[in-house]
Each structure stands twice: as structure tokens, then as C-alpha cells.
């Protein structure tokens, strides 16, 4: 039996909704098949008021063993570092987070806000928000760069806006069943099993990427979304086209550009008018190129690909 406590800071509940929609395994499977005891969760917890405070204090004191502390949302520090803009169970949430993280065997950050601040921490960051162990790309965050949970692992980051349901439940199961040693983390403390390949890996538009055929408008089934509509699939680490959403689709498969939501810089371009859903270019060349590709190589590749492109690449082959 592994005790799981899930709290929510500065957040939209998106990761809770994602978690409740998990299928492999489902939230129910966690309890019935994998021995996870949900001490409390914003949408599932039964305790209110004094009873909730008693539960949280029992976790902090060690009376109740806290195996997994899952946190969704940012740590809110405003105003003036007090955290009073996000009070919970009688005190600033940030104080609970600090004390619970210090006694937990594992700390798991769920979604962009908890991992690196996400949208709330975007400049000018009015809530003075931080992720648990990062603020955007900068290591540190609320718990500091040297924090490790009692297991010895740093915060396990599962980013996304929201994180995919099964990324959440599969990591919780791995931790709860004693398999945390098999979880290797990348430089941003993301499980490599999910965040080594790219969103583009498995994208159904890859042939259009290869032959440099663009989709200049939304709703087109032919064409790659990278060239004109700002898709960040070639430089975003996520398995969105390997572990499909709702078991059947993904943003790019549905014609929606990847927004790069599993990367620390999300949302990109400060959301300035004209920058969203538009590939940023400098003198006609994309500002952000596919990971590992330099500008000279990109230009040569484009010329060669255009010259070699077959006629079918220009047609909508999905029409039958």
C-alpha cells in the first residue's frame, strides 16, 4: 500500500481532469490493482475543514506515512513572498508544500505549472509563481536546486498543459510498486521513457515534413504544420503521437499545431499578437529549426527535398 496525497496550487484543474480520464491504467486501477491509497485529492478527497487540516498535519508529523506527494499548479508566492493569494487549509499553500515535500518519499510535479511555472509564471508573473524545482528553464524553483525527496530522487517532472492522463498514472504506478529505480530522468527531470522522442515522432504528417509541403491554413489534411502554422513538433519532447490522446488522436493529427507545452519555455513568444500559430521567421528562414538541424543544413535539405518531392505529396491523399 502506498499513500498518495495530491494538492493543487495555482492551477486550472486541467491535470486533475486529465488524471480522472486516464485509461492505462485508470485512476480506479491505481486503487484496486496497484495498491495506491489516495489520502486526499481535490476532486476525490472526502475530508473538509478541520478534518483535512488534521490529515495534512498527520502527514507532516509522520503519523501517516506519505509515500507520494503529487502537486498540480504553481507555488504562489504573492503578495510580497507571503503566499497569501493561495491559502489552503488555514495557511498559505506554499507552507504545506514545503513541509509535505520534506517528508514525502517521492515528489511528483504534474503539468507545466507545477514543473516550471507554465502560463501563470509567464512575464510579468503577477502571482510570483514558481514550479516545484524549476522556474521556466532555470533550475531551482520553490524547493531549490538541491532538493531531493526521502527516496533520494529530485522532483519527478511530468509536464504538459495538461500532462497526458497515462503519463501521470503510469509514473504513479511505477513509484508505488517499487519500480522508481527504473525511472531515468532527463536534464529537466522528466522521465526519459516519455520525453526523449519528439512530438513529431509518429506524426501522420511526417511525409509532408520530409518533402517540404506546407499546410498554410487550418483544417487541411495534407501538409506539414511546422512551416507556416508554428507547429513545434520537431523540437518538442513528448510522446503525443506515440501515446495518443483519448487513445485515437493528437493535436497534429487533428490539424492543430503542437504548442510545445512539455518544454520549459511554454508558452512561447510571450503570446504577442501575430506570433501564435505562426512560424517565426527571420528573412524567410524559421527562427526555431528542428532539434539538431543548423540553418545551412536546413536550407540544403529543403532544396533537395523540394527537388525530389513526388507528385502525391502535393495531393490530399486522405480523400477516398
Amino acid at each position, binding site marked *: 500500500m502506498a499513500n498518495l496525497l495530491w494538492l493543487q496550487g495555482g492551477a486550472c484543474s486541467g491535470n486533475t481532469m486529465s488524471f480522472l480520464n486516464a485509461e492505462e491504467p485508470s485512476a480506479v486501477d491505481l486503487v484496486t490493482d496497484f495498491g495506491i491509497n489516495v489520502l486526499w485529492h481535490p476532486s476525490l478527497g472526502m475530508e473538509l475543514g478541520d478534518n483535512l487540516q488534521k490529515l495534512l498535519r498527520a502527514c507532516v508529523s509522520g503519523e501517516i506515512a506519505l509515500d507520494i506527494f503529487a502537486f498540480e499548479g504553481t507555488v504562489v508566492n504573492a503578495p510580497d513572498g507571503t503566499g497569501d493569494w493561495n491559502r489552503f487549509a488555514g495557511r498559505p499553500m506554499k507552507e504545506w508544500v514545503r513541509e509535505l515535500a520534506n517528508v514525502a518519499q517521492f515528489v511528483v510535479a504534474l503539468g507545466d505549472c507545477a514543473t516550471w511555472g507554465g502560463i501563470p509564471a509567464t512575464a510579468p508573473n503577477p502571482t510570483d509563481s514558481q514550479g516545484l524545482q524549476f522556474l521556466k528553464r532555470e533550475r531551482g524553483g520553490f524547493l531549490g536546486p538541491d532538493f531531493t525527496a526521502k527516496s533520494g530522487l529530485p522532483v519527478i517532472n511530468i509536464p504538459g498543459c495538461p500532462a497526458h492522463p497515462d503519463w501521470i498514472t503510469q509514473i504513479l504506478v511505477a513509484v508505488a510498486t517499487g519500480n522508481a529505480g527504473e525511472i531515468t530522468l532527463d536534464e529537466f527531470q522528466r522521465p526519459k521513457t516519455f520525453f526523449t522522442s519528439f512530438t513529431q515522432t509518429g506524426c501522420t504528417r511526417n511525409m509532408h515534413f520530409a518533402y*517540404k*509541403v506546407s499546410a498554410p491554413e487550418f483544417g487541411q489534411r495534407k501538409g506539414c504544420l511546422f512551416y507556416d502554422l508554428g507547429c513545434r513538433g520537431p523540437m518538442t519532447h513528448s510522446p503525443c503521437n506515440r501515446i495518443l490522446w483519448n487513445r485515437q488522436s493528437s493535436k497534429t493529427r487533428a490539424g492543430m499545431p503542437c504548442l510545445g507545452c512539455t518544454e520549459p519555455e511554454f508558452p512561447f513568444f510571450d503570446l504577442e499578437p*501575430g506570433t501564435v500559430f505562426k512560424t*517565426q*521567421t527571420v*528573412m*524567410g528562414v524559421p527562427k526555431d529549426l528542428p532539434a539538431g538541424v543548423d540553418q545551412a543544413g*536546413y536550407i540544403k535539405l529543403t532544396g533537395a527535398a523540394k527537388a525530389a518531392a513526388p507528385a502525391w505529396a502535393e495531393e490530399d491523399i486522405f480523400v477516398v
Partner: protein
Amino acid sequence: MGGNKRDDPAKLLAEIAQMLEDGLETQTEPFPETVQEFSKILDELRALDRDDIKGRLVIGGFVNHPYGPDGQRCQECIYYLVHRKWCDLPELSLPVEPEWWCRLWKI
């Protein structure tokens, strides 16, 4: 130009080629360095009558040869459909030759 020529890309391509050959002055400068500048040109194009081919050539800055120090041309542009000899940028939607260029060039 009449809209019926849309149905015959080869004929339209020949007419466009002739206009450029005859020295049609187009707005090759300024080249849009940013997305915002690019979008302003698109806005100008959208304001044109859908049959105003000449207007599209002028605002697009078309020339019938490679352009600039790097010899940029439609052939490498992301909007160019090689087999159809067609510019697929919705605001242009024109038959073009691979050796041509316009200031909405993007790779």
C-alpha cells in the same frame, strides 16, 4: 483579368510570364523580416479583388528570376508546389515558374 482564366493555369501562367517579361514594376522591397511585417502584406493581398492578378503580382513583389545575393527562387519556397507549378499561399494562389521569386518567399 477575368476569373475564367483560373480554370486554365497554363494560360494564366503564360499571361503572368508576359506581364513580368514586359517589365511590370512590383514591390520587391521591403522584404518582410518578421511575421508581423509578413502579415501586413497578407492583409493588403486580402483586400484585393479575387480576380486582380496584377495586384497580387505587384504587392507580392514578383520577379521572373532568382532574387537577392543567395539567388532565392520559388523552387525552394515552402509554398511552391513543384509538380503543379503553383504557389499554394492562399493569398497568392497563382501558377508560377520555379525560377521566379516574390517577397513572401519562405523556406
